[in-house]
């Protein structure tokens, strides 16, 4: 059990590193996916360790919510690209042109 928690926290920290270093909006989304994945790993691992179905149920909900987040996030990235011509997140400071 300890092993999977250590692996998941390392995964989460890799995601945090990516989130802090990326300038490209899609790079930020990749980092967020890595972090969500680490959280799922903990949910499933602990659920199986305790023999409770709640872990896998919540991991399933998390996966579905992550997919919804990616869909809306990509739509926003496309909108950003269309209005600015690039998708560098720290260049986009204004909500309108």
């Amino acid at each position, binding site marked *: 059990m*300890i092993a*999977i928690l250590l692996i998941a926290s390392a995964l989460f920290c*890799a995601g945090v590193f990516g989130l802090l*270093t990326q300038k*490209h909006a*899609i790079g930020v989304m*990749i980092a967020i996916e890595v972090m969500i994945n680490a959280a799922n790993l903990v949910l*499933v691992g602990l659920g199986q360790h305790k*023999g409770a179905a709640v872990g896998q149920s919540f991991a399933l909900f998390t996966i579905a919510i992550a997919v919804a987040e990616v869909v*809306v996030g990509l739509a926003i990235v496309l909108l950003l690209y269309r209005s600015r011509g690039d998708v560098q997140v720290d260049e986009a400071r204004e909500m309108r042109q």
Partner: protein
Amino acid sequence: MNLEMLMQDPALWGLGIATLAFAMLAVSVKNLVHAVLWLGMSLLGTAALFAKFDASFLAAIQVLLYVGGVVVLLIFGVMLTREHDNLAAFRTTRRPVRAALVAIALFVGLVHAILNTPGLGDPSAGKLVSMPDLGMSLLGPYAFAFEVLSLLLLAAMVGAVVLARKRDPGQPSAKKLIRHRNLGRQVVEGLAATDEVGQ
């Protein structure tokens, strides 16, 4: 907690370290298309870990939704938003040293918390959650959350379509439509007035 107990499952460690290495490549390689593909490998590694935990349904969902859906969507995103001058989307990074320090500090804190939590090293309950258990849980105590989730997916789909829809250049904007309507109304009123004058 000793090292022997930690190392008792080499397959778990191998899969975990491979997943971690893929994730690190995904957040650090320069080419974004390669980064998305590495992310896909990392998600496959997680699916293998799920399968190792006997969570076969979750492993299948992970492959279908993440590797089949999210990765393809992200690749579409990279292709649609690339800069005009270079073919593949290359990315630059900012403040890598400080970000690495934050990540390492967070990791040390998490490891400290994990190693100091009592009961984690205990043998497991022995009863693994099977797919029927998961189904009973989803349609029993969490049925409402399950239904709300389907609404969320519908809302996300509609929201994405509305956000990303490209306005047809031939189609006038809402403001223009209102102006046209007002103009039309003025013309009709003017005609009516001339009619009255004529009578």
